[in-house]
């Protein structure tokens, strides 16, 4: 018995347990950590989706838009045409339906155009000049990100108007031309020089390299693929790209009453639905079976609503013209499941061939870049080889978009443009090394979401206009969300991995070991002295923004 012990009264208490340390019991420590949400990881443009949706939820629309345009200057465009892998990966999809990210993006994008919000310009101007070849989504994204960083940018465009596939590829009923014009003009207004009607060929690059410190090739994939069984004759077989380009230029081709569209992707759907709007009856013939077309499900659904006939598992064996009509002999096929990914290997089912007649056949079976004469290495897939900074084999020459990728998505092009800027910047600053590459925390999985905190709420998508009315013109086929709908949908977002300062961790700690600082902004801390490492805060975090890390002693 020591002398001090004798002074401790045996009955009435004299103090508080706060002087005891229970932190020594711990074998794991909770750590508040911002973690990537599946949507963010899935976003080809690297959009901070949980953040801008949170801002929409809070009614901070301008902030939401600024968050969006940090990665993507075209939210009103992508809010309509993005294939939104974010929604496919959305954790809420496993609960009561994915968040309608795409519709929310359109809501914010449209609002910005309506309000006339300007894009943020550069903070400091730099002397270096960069040329961007091509004004599609990739090229303009690249130009915009360069301009934001202060570079002097000149964009070269072969066509009379900028926008690339946004202007000349995607039909107006999916992407109204005034939306494209609005977002492109707003982008150019940040101080980007545009030279339209200027074709840049491979041999021009040397002189450009003298004028510009770096080049970025974003020339897209304008060369439509052809199929050997179709011998283009008399204009009865045309390419989807040409067709859509002409319609978009209001140079309507005569295609006759019966149209056969070959292909099952997005372009095939655009072609088929455009042809329907021109009054034709349309059959789509695709190798893939009808339930597994590469086009997005919603596009397929809308095409069917509009009276497009889709026949999957079909391969055209031969096409013969007879009396002004093309007769297509078709085989039923199945795709060999053992073929490598991305390769279609049809197996003919014998004895079930049939005939399809058409006034016009429109081929929508893919397209390649046109890179003849460009001094950069190309891969077997006929696109420019780039590293993860979009650098090509040519010094100071970068490439992005369809010219450098087989991912034929607008948002992928936007992401590529942004990525190229990281490479260009490193190049211009003489820095080596990799772009990005910092280790990021694990993505938040659905099982880390505490769904108790999220009452079931129905996913609401944009409504489609009446199909009969849709066919009458090229007006937009889908009705944007109202503000009220948008706010309600934004509330459905789990904000995976993003602390919303909800205080659950603070309130659920049995040991009062989570502390909450309120100034200057709310922050949480863990009191090592008391935390027993139970993980209750981790479990009760609604959104996986806390992780338990093993303690090493």
């Amino acid at each position: 018995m020591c002398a001090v012990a004798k002074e401790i009264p045996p009955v009435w208490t004299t103090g508080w347990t706060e002087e005891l340390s229970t932190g020594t019991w711990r074998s794991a420590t909770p750590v508040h950590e911002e973690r990537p949400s599946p949507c963010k990881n899935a976003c080809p443009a690297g959009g901070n989706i949980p953040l801008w949706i949170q801002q929409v939820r809070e009614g901070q629309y301008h902030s939401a838009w600024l968050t969006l345009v940090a990665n993507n200057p075209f939210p009103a465009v992508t809010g309509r045409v993005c294939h939104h892998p974010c929604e496919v990966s959305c954790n809420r999809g496993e609960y009561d339906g994915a968040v309608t990210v795409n519709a929310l993006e359109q809501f914010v994008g449209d609002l910005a155009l309506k309000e006339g919000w300007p894009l943020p310009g550069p903070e400091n101007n730099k002397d270096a000049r960069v040329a961007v070849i091509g004004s599609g989504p990739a090229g303009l994204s690249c130009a915009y990100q360069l301009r934001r960083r202060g570079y002097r940018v000149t964009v070269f465009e072969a066509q009379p108007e900028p926008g690339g596939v946004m202007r000349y590829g995607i039909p107006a009923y999916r992407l109204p031309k005034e939306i494209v014009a609005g977002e492109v003009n707003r982008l150019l207004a940040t101080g980007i020089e545009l030279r339209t009607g200027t074709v840049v060929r491979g041999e021009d690059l040397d002189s450009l390299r003298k004028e510009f410190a770096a080049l970025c090739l974003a020339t897209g994939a304008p060369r439509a693929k052809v199929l050997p069984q179709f011998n283009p004759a008399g204009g009865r077989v045309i390419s989807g790209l040409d067709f859509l380009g002409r319609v978009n230029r209001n140079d309507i081709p005569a295609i006759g009453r019966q149209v056969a569209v070959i292909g099952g992707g997005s372009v095939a759907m655009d072609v088929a639905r455009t042809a329907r709007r021109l009054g034709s009856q349309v059959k789509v013939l695709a190798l893939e079976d009808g339930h597994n077309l590469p086009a997005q499900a919603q596009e397929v659904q809308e095409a069917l609503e509009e009276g497009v006939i889709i026949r999957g598992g079909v391969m055209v064996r031969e096409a013969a013209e007879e009396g002004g009509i093309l007769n297509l002999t078709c085989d039923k096929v199945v795709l060999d499941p053992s073929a490598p990914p991305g390769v279609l290997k049809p197996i003919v089912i014998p004895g079930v061939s049939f005939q399809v007649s058409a006034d016009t056949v429109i081929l929508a079976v893919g397209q390649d870049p046109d890179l003849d004469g460009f001094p950069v290495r190309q891969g077997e897939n006929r696109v420019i080889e780039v590293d993860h900074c979009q650098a090509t084999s040519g010094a100071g020459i970068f490439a992005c978009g369809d010219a450098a990728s087989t991912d034929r998505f607008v948002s992928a092009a936007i992401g590529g443009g942004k990525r190229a800027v990281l490479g260009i910047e490193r190049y211009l600053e003489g820095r080596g090394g990799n772009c990005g590459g910092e280790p990021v925390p694990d993505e938040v999985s659905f099982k880390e979401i505490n769904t108790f905190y999220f009452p079931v709420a129905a996913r609401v998508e944009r409504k489609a206009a009446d199909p009969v009315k849709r066919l009458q013109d090229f007006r937009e086929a889908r009705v944007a969300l109202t503000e009220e709908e948008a706010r309600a949908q934004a509330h459905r977002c789990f904000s995976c991995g993003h602390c919303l300062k909800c205080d659950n961790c603070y309130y659920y700690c049995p040991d009062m070991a989570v502390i909450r600082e309120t100034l200057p902004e709310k922050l949480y801390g863990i009191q090592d002295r008391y935390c027993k490492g139970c993980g209750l805060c981790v479990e009760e975090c609604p959104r996986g923004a806390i992780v338990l890390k093993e303690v090493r002693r």
Partner: protein
Amino acid sequence: MLLNGNHAAAYGVKLARPKVVPVYPITPQTPILEKISEFQARGEMEVDIMTMESEHSAMAACITASLAGVRVFTATASQGLMLMHEMLHYASGAQAPIVMCNVNRTIGSPWGFWPDQTDSLAQRDTGWIQYYCENPQESLDTVLQAFRVAEKVLLPAMVIHEAFYVSHALEVVEVPDREVADRYLPPFDPPHRLDPEIGESWGNVVNQDMFYRHRKTLGRSMDQALEAAIEADSLWQELTGRGYGVIEEYRCRDAELLIVTMGCMAGTAREAVDQLREAGVPVGLLKVKLFRPFPVDQVRRALKGVPGVVVLDRNFAPGTGGFLHQELKAALYGLEGGPAVHGCLAGVGGTNVSPTKIAALAREAMGGKPSVFPVWKG
């Protein structure tokens, strides 16, 4: 006033002004509860009577009410006291100065309603001060003394009298004036108490060392109770002219034998002593009023040089015999010239023990050798 022992005790309680009285009825205690309820109903007592569902709960409420800083009283008997047993320890451990009247009654089984001190004596080790009273007046006076002592040393105290012989027997009792009682008993205002303004908690789990020290503290409080009891009695005597001492020596001068007993048996023995003295037999009476703490020094002083002692126990502990007999022998251990100690189990279960019988037992003891075993003497 003509009062029975229970009502006399109730008058004592009224003068002590307890604020909370948790209580549960049991024969032969019930008249105490009834009288206090009557005082309250008539507006003569400002007290919160808690009509508990058991003696266990009654004592539980007593302890906390006391620890919350108010004067507390309760009363019980026999089985009720048995049921309280756990809480009796708890009360002393909490150093809660509760005063409780216990009316001695046989413990079942079998059922009986008769005077027998075994119920309270079996609680001798619970850390309670114990007073045994001879008559209604003593019970009244002792209730007030018990509060004074209990609150001074922070231990609970039992004021005990026997069933019917005291509890229900009417005698002339002088009820002191309220001013006298108030002067005698200052308000109870303990420095440590359950009060949010103080914030101290009571009774958290202790380690071995703390428990050891706590028991030592209890022992010290009990030791101090003896002196406090002597002080309380002499002050009471100053104020009222009545004092009892912690022991009483009656006609002990030159006695060759002392009758030693407690409670109302002392009254009967007093008569026997008178008879014997009249017959020229040198016999005296030693009444033990304070049983806990046991007044060892006082008893040894009183019995030094006395050749013989006969202890009359209206109680019985199987395996050892009479409680007082055993206690007395222990107290006298090693006393040079100490007496031969005879023990008689007399009146166990409430059987009648007359003065003549006591005189006979005294004569018998004077002529014989003491037995180490219990001796049953009706």
